[in-house]
């Protein structure tokens, strides 16, 4: 995770399906080519959903995903690059 430096961070903690994907789309649209977006979610479904979204959407790639702990709660971090 530390090998990539995110340009922007999108906090979607507390939001559930479909909002993490929907808001990620909007945040990626605002990026320049080559920039990296970090998405931080509490929705465990975001691991599969954001990977699936990135894999089947042109112009974005999922660089890394990890589960971490923040203040005792599970958070899911995703690094997405705009191509």
């Amino acid at each position: 995770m530390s090998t990539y430096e995110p340009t922007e961070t999108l906090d979607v903690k507390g939001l559930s399906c479909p909002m993490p994907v929907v808001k990620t789309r909007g945040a990626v649209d605002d990026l320049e080519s080559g920039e990296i977006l970090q998405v931080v979610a509490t929705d465990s479904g975001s691991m599969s959903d954001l990977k699936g979204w990135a894999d089947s959407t042109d112009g974005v790639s999922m660089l890394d995903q990890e589960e971490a702990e923040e203040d005792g709660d599970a958070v899911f971090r995703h690094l997405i690059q705009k191509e």
Partner: protein
Amino acid sequence: MSSDADAPVDAGAASVEDLRAQVQALQEEVSDLREATDDDGQKSMTIIATKGTLDMAYPPLILASTAAAFGWDVVVFHTFWGLDILHEKKSKNLKLSAVGNPSMPMPNAVAALPFMDSVATSMMEKKIQENGTATVEELIETSLDMGVDLQACQMTIELMGYDEAEFYDGVTTGVGAATALQHMADADVQLMI
């Protein structure tokens, strides 16, 4: 020996001519088919939304907004009770039906009591809030922002006695079954909910 060798060569030369012609014909056919299918990778989805209960408002809106995030071209055609989802006032007051719902933790005889729909609806709304699930209104605004075409069936608008001004700004009116079918025929995914 040489005459034996010449004969197949002549036959082969004729075949090559034929094959060239066939290959050219096939290339033209493939080119025409590619043009006809117009497969530029742009996926599209058409959903027909027919239900107006709180639980049934979610699936079409969640799928529509997510598909829009994928960059798909999305149309949701709302008809009959599905129209209530697009009705600005009614959409904020959609009810959950307690009767005939086997997932409810109560027998139908109890569920049929006058206040039970309200109780079930309040419980669901509380869960939606606690879970961080978007409201129907939020999903409609999000879908419209993302370019989803939310269509309200004109026939049902008139049947229900609604006014076009009662729907969310951005909702498409003045459309009917033929418009829905046209989108369905072109769509990669068609769903009736």
